[in-house]
C-alpha cells in the first residue's frame, strides 16, 4: 500500500470520526497556539526594546565614565570625579583622529525643578551641544534647537520634552515663555517631538535640554566632566571602526591600558543584548508552560488512537484478512496520528496568528509572529503525532487477524 494510498485512508478515517478527531486535535491546537503566542509575546517585547534603543539614534556609540568590570567604579564615575570630560568629546570630534565619527554630543545630567508661576515640575536636565539633536535623532515639534552661539555664550535658553511641556504648559504654546531653574529664568525656544516609544520612553520625553555651558551655570557645577558622550558613526558599516578609534583615543588621552579602562563604550547592540536577557527568561518560562500543554495534547492523541485501535479491531482484522501486512496496518495508524498532529498544528498556527493580531489591542503588548517559531510549531505538532502514534500503531500492527475478526 503506497504512502499516498495510506494518506488517503487516514484522511478518510479521520473524517469518518469528525467529532472525535476534532476533540483530539484540540489539545494540539491549544498547545501550538499558546507556544506561538508566548514566543510571539516574548519577541514582541524584544522588538519593542530594540525599537526604543534604535530610537536613541542610528549608528550610536554611548560612552560612559567608569568601567563595566567594576560597578563600584562606574558609580563613582557619575559623581564629582567623573573621568569623562568635554575635552574627551572635543578630541573625538577631531576628524583626523577619528575619521569614522560623524558627530559627538557630550551631555551632563542632573535632576532639577522647573518652575512656571504656580507649577513646579521635577525633571532631568540635560546639558549638551548643538549636535545632540542629530546624534540622538530627535525632531522638534515647535520652535528650534539652540545654536552654537548660544552654547558659546551660555544663553539662558531651554528646549523641553513633550511630556514636560504637558506638565508645565497645559494650555497655550510654551515657546517664548519662561521657566525658572534654581532661580535662573530660561526662555523656552523649542519643544522636542515625542520620541514615540511608550513604556520606557518616559524620560526621553520628559527632560529639559540646555546648552552645556548654561547647564553648568544653573546647576552650579564648575568642572568639565560629563556624564555621557554620544558618538555617531559616519554610517553603520563604520560603527566598529568608530568604536576602535574612540576606544584607542580615550585610552591614550587618559593614559591607561585597556584592562584599566575608566570608561565604557556601549553600542545599541550591546544595550539590546542586556535588555533581551531579562526578556528571554520570561519567554523561556512561558514557553515551558506551553510545551507542557503540548505534551498533554500529544498524550491525548495517543489515548484517542488507542481507543481507535480497539474500536476498529474488526476493521483491522478484515484488512489483514484481505492482505494488509502488519507494516501496512501500522503505517495506516501512524499516518492517521501524524495527520491529526499536523492538522492540529496548522489550526494551532492559524489560531495563534489570529491571536497575535487581536491580542495587542487587548493587553497593550506587541505580539510578533515569527516564521521560525511557526515552522517549529508545525514540526513539533507533526513530531507529536508521530511520536505518540507509534505505540497505538504497533498495537494495531501486532493484532492477529483472527482475533481481530472474531471480536465483537
Amino acid at each position, binding site marked *: *500500500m*503506497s504512502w499516498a*494510498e495510506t494518506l488517503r485512508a487516514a484522511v*478518510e478515517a479521520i473524517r*469518518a470520526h469528525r467529532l472525535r478527531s476534532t476533540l483530539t486535535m484540540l489539545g494540539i491546537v491549544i498547545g501550538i497556539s499558546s507556544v506561538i503566542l508566548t514566543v510571539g509575546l516574548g519577541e514582541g517585547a524584544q522588538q519593542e526594546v530594540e525599537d526604543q534603543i534604535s530610537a536613541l539614534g542610528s549608528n550610536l556609540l554611548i560612552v560612559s565614565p567608569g568601567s563595566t568590570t567594576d560597578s563600584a567604579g562606574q558609580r563613582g564615575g557619575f559623581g564629582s570625579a567623573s573621568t569623562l570630560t568635554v575635552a574627551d568629546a572635543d578630541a573625538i570630534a577631531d576628524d583626523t583622529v577619528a575619521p569614522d565619527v560623524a558627530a559627538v554630543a557630550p551631555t551632563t545630567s542632573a535632576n532639577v525643578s522647573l518652575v512656571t508661576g504656580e507649577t513646579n515640575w521635577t525633571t532631568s536636565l540635560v546639558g549638551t551641544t548643538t549636535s545632540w539633536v542629530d546624534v540622538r535623532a530627535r525632531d522638534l515639534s515647535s520652535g528650534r534647537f539652540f545654536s552654537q552661539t548660544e552654547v558659546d555664550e551660555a544663553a539662558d535658553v531651554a528646549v523641553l520634552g513633550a511630556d514636560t511641556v504637558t506638565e508645565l504648559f497645559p494650555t497655550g504654546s510654551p515657546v517664548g515663555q519662561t521657566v525658572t531653574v534654581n532661580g535662573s529664568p530660561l526662555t523656552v525656544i523649542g519643544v522636542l517631538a515625542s520620541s514615540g516609544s511608550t513604556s520606557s520612553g518616559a524620560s526621553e520625553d520628559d527632560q529639559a535640554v540646555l546648552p552645556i555651558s548654561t547647564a553648568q551655570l544653573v546647576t552650579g557645577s564648575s568642572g568639565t566632566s560629563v556624564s555621557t558622550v554620544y558618538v555617531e558613526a559616519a554610517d553603520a558599516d563604520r560603527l566598529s571602526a568608530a568604536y576602535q578609534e574612540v576606544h584607542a583615543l580615550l585610552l591614550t588621552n587618559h593614559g591607561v591600558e585597556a584592562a584599566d579602562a575608566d570608561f565604557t563604550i556601549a553600542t545599541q547592540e550591546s544595550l539590546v543584548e542586556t535588555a533581551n536577557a531579562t526578556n528571554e527568561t520570561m519567554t523561556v518560562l512561558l514557553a515551558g508552560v506551553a510545551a507542557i500543554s503540548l505534551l498533554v495534547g500529544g498524550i491525548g492523541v495517543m489515548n484517542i488512537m488507542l481507543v481507535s485501535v480497539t474500536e476498529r479491531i*474488526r*476493521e483491522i482484522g*478484515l*484488512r*489483514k*484478512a*484481505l*492482505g*494488509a*501486512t*502488519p*507494516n*501496512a496496518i501500522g503505517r495506516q495508524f501512524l499516518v492517521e496520528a501524524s495527520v491529526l498532529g499536523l492538522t492540529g498544528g496548522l489550526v494551532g498556527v492559524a489560531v495563534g496568528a489570529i491571536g497575535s493580531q487581536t491580542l495587542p489591542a487587548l493587553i497593550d503588548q506587541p505580539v510578533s509572529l515569527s516564521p521560525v517559531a511557526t515552522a517549529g510549531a508545525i514540526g513539533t505538532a507533526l513530531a507529536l503525532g508521530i511520536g505518540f502514534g507509534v505505540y497505538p500503531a504497533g498495537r494495531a500492527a501486532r493484532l*492477529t*487477524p*483472527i482475533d481481530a*475478526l472474531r471480536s465483537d
Partner: protein
Amino acid sequence: MSNPTSAPSRNPVIELDEVRKTYRSGTIEFEALRGVDVTIDEGEYVAVVGPSGSGKSTLMNLLGCLDTPTSGAYRLAGEDVSTMSETELAEVRNRRIGFVFQQFHLLPSKSAWRNVELPLVYAGVPRAERRDRARAALTRVGLEERLDNRPGELSGGQQQRVAVARALVTEPSLILADEPTGNLDSSSSADVMTLLDELHDAGRTIVLITHDLEVAERAQRNVVIRDGRITDDVATGAGLDVAGGAR
C-alpha cells in the same frame, strides 16, 4: 477415507497433515481440531458440514491462513505456510484466497466499490485499474447499479454479493466461504449459491462451510467434521448421512 473426485492429474491446493488446533484461555485448554488430514485439489467444490462447535470455523481459519495450527503441516499450493512470517501470510491471503464471511464484514463507511477494491489496494494495483476491476466484479454479481451505495443502503443479500465480489476481484484460485448464507433469506441464499456455482464453473477451488443440507448438496464433495475430527468425506449424492450431525 475416500477422496472420490480427486484425479491423479490434478494439483492439490490444500494439503493438511495431522493438523491440531488447541485454544488456550488461561489455564483452560480446548482442542478444537484433533488431527485433521485432508487434501483438496484445484477446481474442487467442497462443503464442510458438521454440528455447531465441531471445529468447522477453526478449520476454515487455518485454511485461510488467518490462524496457525498448533501442530501438523499445512501446504497451500505446495508451499508450507506454517513457517511463513505474518507479512508473507498477508501476501498469501491477498493473492491466493478470497474470503466470504457469514457476517459479510464490509466496511460500513465505504461504498460498495470501495469495499470491493480493498484487496487490490494491498496488492498495489493502481487506483484507476482498481476502480475498473471493482466495477467489473460488482457487475458480475449483478450490482452494477449499486457501486456507490454504502453497505447500510443495501439488503443482506446484496451485502453478501458485495462480499463475493470482493472475494473474486483478485482472481484468487481458492475461495473460502464460512456459512455465507447463514444470515440470508432463502432467495438471497439462492443468489449467492448461484454465484459460487458460477465461480466453480470458472475453475475456482471452493471450500464452503454450511449447516444447510440443500446448500451442501450443491458441492461435489462433502467433508463431515465432528468433535474436531473428519468423520466422513464423500461425493454428494453418495448416501451421505449428515442429517443427524448437522443441526
